[in-house]
């Protein structure tokens, strides 16, 4: 061990030199941690694209604090372990802030590492657990599951007056968290939950679980997971002749849900925030035009726009404080009040939570179009 | 304790209802060279497999120094001092000759379970003794020059010698040789005969299956002849050789042709 020490000292010196070199450089680095490949690739790529678009716009105007902004992306593939690896990597790259990730699980896995390194992080992850640590480095740019859950419970109990409710989720961090929140909110309103279950994403065959549910004769099946399984669940539900309503959480709102469910899609209810194309804000319309012009497509969903708002809030913090010190920037971000965002006004609570959220329920029509049935 | 080191009493072994060994009995004296002959497929190797625990016979008793060993696992049989060679040579082909012979030292090695992780002075002493023993055996079988060569790369005759050295390394009381001369040329067979006598002189009891009649007759002190799993004749070599039942059995089979 003692023999090791000279080496330790030497390599430590080299490291310190490297780190100080990157600090002194004339760029400000912003990290992107997103699922650029894998199951959620389209969302991850949208986040990466959006960040690069905003950064290009800033750099075109001369950067920030007199320095150019450089984007460093890391692909977390939507998995917690890869996220942990990305976190280490981005910290080592010396980024000031990290945008992402898309899934709550990958976000949470990286949180502690960023916190220890004093790096700001902003994510659209909706799990309530994301803010339990009260890390000063973390900001949520979307709305929490608990907000969606409260809306869902209100709709189920006050709106639809369901008597027998089934709640299903998959194993993902986001989905279990949303299901837990919905169950909690329903119980608070004395909703009668007759069954809570989990399905394994990607299994495709849900008939066994649905047959079991059929025997309970429910009024509604609520699914908090992703569209890839939700569409199949709906199709197999109709196939088995289960006459309950099907209500999908926000991640079921995807064109592929309709394709998977096929003829069974009609009559499905989906709960979500407004889709990008109906956002009423000028800044949103301008962003979408720019995005379309640069990438010749639309962002995958509103989630990538939420991340862009996170980035804009961080950059705004830098500009107003004229500081690169993350502590100072964070303090400024916590004080933001109704900062004009693409997805609406942005206000952060002390624990990093974004306040607000306007949910609505759509019913899928025969031609796969949406009809708003509840606000 | 009787004068017999190994007693086989009314042993029968079946495969899928077909009888492979049928009510076989024999007794081997300590220090003897005991021969087993018979046409191919007579059940000789099956008998050896029963003794060494690879098969468990359905009926009968196998007594080692008066104690029942039927159904004992092969590695425990080896620990008791019964070692064997194989008709189809079974060496650790990719490993060197010395390492092959070292496997025979396994049961004699006194290394403790933690010696696989950390070495102690006792380990070094034990390891050295065992390698030295391997060296002695390589000298004895004229194998020293091949010490580092993979056993599988060597000629048939040498491989047979390695197999015997390996079995002998375990310091057996009973050495079971399954066709030790098969595939050897005349010189090698002669050499083998000398070696077997030397092994006997060390006090090792030997049981062997062999088709080379000349060798069997010159070496063995007692012979049992098996056909269709049953004993058809037994006695001193001279007696067995002239027994009409035996002659009949051999003429009735294609035995000799196959071994040309």
């Amino acid at each position, binding site marked *: 061990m003692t023999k090791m020490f000279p080496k330790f000292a030497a390599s430590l010196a080299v490291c310190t030199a490297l780190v100080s070199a990157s600090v002194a450089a004339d760029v400000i680095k912003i990290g992107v941690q997103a699922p650029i490949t894998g199951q959620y690739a389209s969302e991850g790529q949208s986040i990466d694209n959006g960040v690069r678009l905003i950064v290009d716009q800033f750099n075109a105007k001369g950067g920030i604090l007199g320095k150019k902004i450089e984007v460093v992306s890391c692909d977390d593939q939507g998995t917690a372990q890869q996220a942990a690896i990305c976190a280490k990597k981005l910290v080592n790259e010396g980024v000031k802030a990290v945008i992402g990730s898309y899934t709550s699980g990958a976000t949470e*896995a990286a949180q502690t590492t960023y916190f220890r390194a004093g790096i700001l992080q902003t994510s659209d992850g909706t799990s309530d657990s994301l803010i339990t640590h009260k890390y000063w480095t973390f900001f949520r740019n979307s709305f929490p599951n608990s907000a969606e859950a409260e809306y869902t419970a209100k709709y189920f109990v006050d709106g639809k007056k369901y008597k027998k409710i089934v709640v299903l989720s998959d194993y993902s961090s986001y989905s279990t968290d949303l299901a837990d929140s919905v169950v909690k909110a329903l119980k608070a309103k004395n909703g009668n939950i007759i069954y809570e279950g989990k399905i394994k994403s990607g299994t495709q065959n849900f008939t066994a679980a649905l047959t079991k549910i059929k025997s309970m004769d429910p009024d509604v099946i609520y699914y908090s997971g992703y569209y890839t399984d939700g569409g199949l669940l709906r199709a197999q539900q109709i196939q088995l002749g289960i006459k309950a309503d099907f209500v999908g959480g926000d991640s079921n709102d995807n064109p592929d849900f309709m394709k998977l469910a096929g003829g069974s899609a009609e009559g499905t209810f989906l709960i979500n925030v407004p889709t990008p194309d109906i956002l009423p804000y000028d800044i949103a319309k301008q962003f979408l035009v720019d995005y379309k012009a640069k990438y010749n497509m639309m962002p995958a969903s509103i989630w990538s726009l939420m991340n862009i708002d996170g980035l804009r809030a961080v950059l705004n913090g830098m500009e107003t404080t004229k500081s690169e010190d993350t502590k100072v920037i964070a303090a400024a971000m916590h004080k933001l009040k109704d900062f004009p965002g693409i997805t609406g006004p942005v206000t952060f609570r002390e624990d990093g939570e974004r306040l607000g959220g306007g949910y609505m329920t759509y019913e899928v029509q025969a031609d796969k179009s949406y009809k708003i049935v509840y606000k | 304790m009787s004068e017999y080191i190994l007693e086989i009493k009314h042993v029968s072994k079946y495969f899928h209802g077909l009888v492979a060994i049928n009510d076989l009995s024999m007794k081997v004296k300590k220090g003897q060279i005991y021969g087993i002959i018979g046409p191919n497929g007579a059940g000789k190797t099956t008998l050896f497999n029963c003794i060494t625990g690879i098969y468990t016979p359905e009926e009968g008793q196998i007594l080692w120094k008066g104690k029942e060993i039927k159904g004992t696992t092969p590695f425990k049989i080896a620990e008791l001092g019964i070692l064997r060679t194989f008709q189809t040579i079974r060496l650790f082909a990719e490993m060197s000759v010395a390492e092959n012979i070292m496997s025979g030292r396994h049961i004699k090695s006194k290394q403790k379970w933690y010696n696989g992780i950390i070495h102690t002075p006792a380990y070094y002493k034990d390891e050295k003794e065992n390698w030295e023993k391997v060296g002695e055996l390589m000298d004895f079988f004229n194998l020293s020059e091949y010490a580092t060569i993979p056993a599988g790369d060597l000629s048939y005759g040498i491989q047979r010698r390695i197999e015997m050295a390996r079995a002998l390394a375990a310091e057996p009381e009973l050495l079971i040789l399954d066709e030790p001369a098969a595939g050897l040329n005349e010189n090698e067979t002669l050499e083998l005969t000398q070696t077997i006598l030397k092994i006997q002189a060390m006090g090792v009891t030997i049981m062997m299956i062999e088709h080379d009649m000349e060798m069997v007759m010159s070496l063995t002190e007692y012979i049992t002849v098996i056909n269709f799993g049953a004993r058809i004749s037994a006695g001193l070599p001279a007696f067995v050789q002239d027994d009409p039942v035996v002659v009949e059995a051999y003429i009735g089979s294609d035995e000799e042709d196959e071994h040309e």
Partner: protein
Amino acid sequence: MMTKTSMIALVLLIFMGFFPMFVDSAWLAVGTTFLVFSVVAFSQDIILGRAGVFHMGHALFFGLGAYTTAILNVQFGWPILATWAPSVLIPMVCAFLLAGPIIHLKGDYLLVATIGFNIIFIQILENDVFGLTGGPNGIFGIDIVRLFGIQFASQTYMYYMAFILLGITLFIMRNLDKSKFGRAMFYINKDEIAAQSMGISIRYYKLYAFILGAGIAGAAGSMFSVQYSAVSPEAFNVTQSIMFFTIVLVGGSASLPGVLIGTFIMFVLPEVFREFATARYLVFGLAMILTMILRPRGIWPVKFGNIPSFLKKDVK
């Protein structure tokens, strides 16, 4: 007296020892993971390459070690140092309990049984049994190593800890190979019937390999969880097990340099070629096939004949 192999090993060790001086901390993190994965690959090699057991569930023991450290540290507040012993011992006990009933199975049957154990393990983690494992998210916020008030937080410290672990592993491997136990495993691997007939208990030595391999993998798992301060089920799934299995066979089973090369190819190269993200696994698969066709025993196959020099005097 030094063989060519141990010369190369020494050069490599020296290079790895000074590696942190040449690279930035991002590469140092890759280096650390390489070291940790090599340790796991070596422990897989004890079971697969030495005892010849077709074991395709090794990520289970790796994960057990990682989760032991994570749970004891995060849920029960133990310091990391105190979790080291249990993260080695628990995998060993589990190896004994799990492998015991199936150790008599023949090759491919055992292979699928070990895959089964791995899948059950993942399901236990995902279902958050006793509320300890954190479900599909895993456990976050694992502490750093602290000793006498010093915080071993920097990547360089992590690197050297992993380096020392690899050193210990190599020391054990060398001792194993030079003992009755390592040899018994080889004999069983090459010919079970002949080995039994020499008095070697197949069951005992296969279990010995399993337990030793599990313990080393557990130590690596503990290191892994500290390195990333997070553990989650998918890091220990069957795909990971298959990777360790492949590392050993591509590199050369029972060959120390082979396993290191295998780890380098299967783990470091994909990191280097991240740019070609999408096509890299296609190329990778092709490389696996080609390697096996051109070098069926691995890139650097094991060489036997490592015997005391006094026995080599007559060798021509």
